[in-house]
């Protein structure tokens, strides 16, 4: 199990490219040229007396159609606070009726490659982490991150949503995407990043032999001549480099026995935050399974949103 001292002693090898802001500024400009074209379709099977559930689609980078679950409270006229929920690496986005029942709209984004958004981009799992690694322009995560940014744009465009109360959360890959998207979209007012993935790729790929990071080690072993270029590309997608650009309050939750996302790498992202920040450490917990994490996440976000905490 990692100790807090291990976390503090860790120094990442990852550096920030000089043209990092230019690259992402260019990507956001490219996104802005694409009409969102949102389509919101009621889903009677998943809706109940407390929550309207909708299937949402919108356009993202490359004109790809991205799907999402959208849960909206049935009670009250809004505008509602909203949480955007980013998915893990291999899991499908959840239908979050629990929060919607408490008066909070929730958008769960199926980034490209997820089942609902896989018609045009489907590298598979494993496979996503190495898809398009040839250049920063072609890397699959450029699209994945864009899909998250567009999810924020969707919420911001909705009349039933309070644009001043949009929050973000996710675990594992969803944690990494929470950090990254919060840096790119100041519309996000606070976020909780659990067990964040996408942090310090260069270090993480050699610390453990577990997936998904091991996909990168496999890539480096299969294409040794490409490793240097791969590591350079990954710097543009590393949450450690996004963290100092985040302006809103942020929580990072770390399990000290995490064998998927090394705790040291998640801590490096936490340390790089310059906004108001909180660190939750979970001893004797592994990746995604700290018993107290879901309740803490919920309570903290409810505090930011201004709701009274409701124990589910």
């Amino acid at each position: 199990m990692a100790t807090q001292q291990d976390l503090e002693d860790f120094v990442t090898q990852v550096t920030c490219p000089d043209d990092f802001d230019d690259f992402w500024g260019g990507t956001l400009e490219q996104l802005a040229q694409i009409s969102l074209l949102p389509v919101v379709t009621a889903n009677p099977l998943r809706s109940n007396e407390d929550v309207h559930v909708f299937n949402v689609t919108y356009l993202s980078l490359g004109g790809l159609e991205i799907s999402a679950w959208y849960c909206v409270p049935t009670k009250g006229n809004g505008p509602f606070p909203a949480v955007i929920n980013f998915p893990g690496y291999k899991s499908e986005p959840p239908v979050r009726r629990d929060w919607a029942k408490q008066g909070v709209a929730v958008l769960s984004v199926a980034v490209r490659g997820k089942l609902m958004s896989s018609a045009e981009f489907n590298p598979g799992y494993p496979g996503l982490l190495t898809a398009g690694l040839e250049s920063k322009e072609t890397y699959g995560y450029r699209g994945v991150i864009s899909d998250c940014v567009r999810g924020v744009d969707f919420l911001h465009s909705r009349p039933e949503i309070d644009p001043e109360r949009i929050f973000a959360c996710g675990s594992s890959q969803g944690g990494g995407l929470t950090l990254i998207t919060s840096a790119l979209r100041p519309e996000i007012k606070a976020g909780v990043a659990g067990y964040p993935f996408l942090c310090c790729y260069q270090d993480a790929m050699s610390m453990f032999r577990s997936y998904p990071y091991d996909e990168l080690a496999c890539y480096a072993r299969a294409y040794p001549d490409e490793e240097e270029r791969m590591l350079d590309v990954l710097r543009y997608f590393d949450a450690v480099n996004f963290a100092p650009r985040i302006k809103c309050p942020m929580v990072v939750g770390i399990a000290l026995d995490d064998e998927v996302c090394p705790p040291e790498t998640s801590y490096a992202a936490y340390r790089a935050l310059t906004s108001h920040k909180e660190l939750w450490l979970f001893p004797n917990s592994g990746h995604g399974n700290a018993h107290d994490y879901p309740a803490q996440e919920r309570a903290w976000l409810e505090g930011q949103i201004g709701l009274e905490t409701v124990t589910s």
Partner: protein
Amino acid sequence: MTTSADQFWYQTEEALAEFPVNVRLYRDDFYSQPTWDVYQMRYTSADGATLFAWLSVPEGRGPFPAIIRMPDYGSVHDIVYTPLRERAVVMNPTFRGQRQSDRVYQAEFPGLLTDGIANPDTYVMRRVFADAIRAIDALSIQAQAQLREIALIGSGLGGALALAGAARRRSIHAVAANTPMALGNPLSLESGLGYPLAELDDYIRLYPEQRDAVAQNTADLDPLKIADKITAPVLLSIGINDKSVCPLIFGERLADQIPNCDLRVYQGAAEGGGHEHAQIQLSWLADKLGIG
């Protein structure tokens, strides 16, 4: 007396027997490691469905113990790392509709749990259990690695599939099931549960006239109905706050009915014992497989 569940399993075995297993293995150079080889494995299940599995084989001559990690409820069943991989053959099979076993049928999540549920002949989950049995058969006859004992592990749906596999195949040496899904048990039809079991209540809310059909067509899959047929030792973990996969009362009843069950109850929800239990399970498996 022949029960409905007995009849279901008889029909399932007959459906499996209609097609040869036809195992095909392809070494995956990209994901193979210095100390174990990774194979893409394909084989045939009921209805002629082609299924995919990841298979890893340690370096060395064997024979090796084997672990089948039954798939949970979701589209992806990946090449999860386990430190036992260097000493045991590890198979991660998929069921129909999951990624790489989706050429004919692509499952939705949520959605799979009620797909075709109005009719026992169209209810996909009944074939998902057939696919789990087929995975054991496929591993048993593959020619790449010589095997010793086989253990089944799984969480959620994977836990239920592992228990079913052990009930149907006496060759199974040990089972470690975490929070096995209560699909088929009347408790799974209660409202107020979380996903995935909440899919059943969603369906009944929209189609109230189908309530009896849902109860009948899932009932044969209730792990309680095969629990007493499991001869292998079972390590079972549950969480007292689980309201979405394996409600506490269901897990306790299950433990009561499994002849040789070591039940561990934790403070968790659907994650069961989480990290703490993962360490216990690892030691337990290593001990049962003689690789401690």
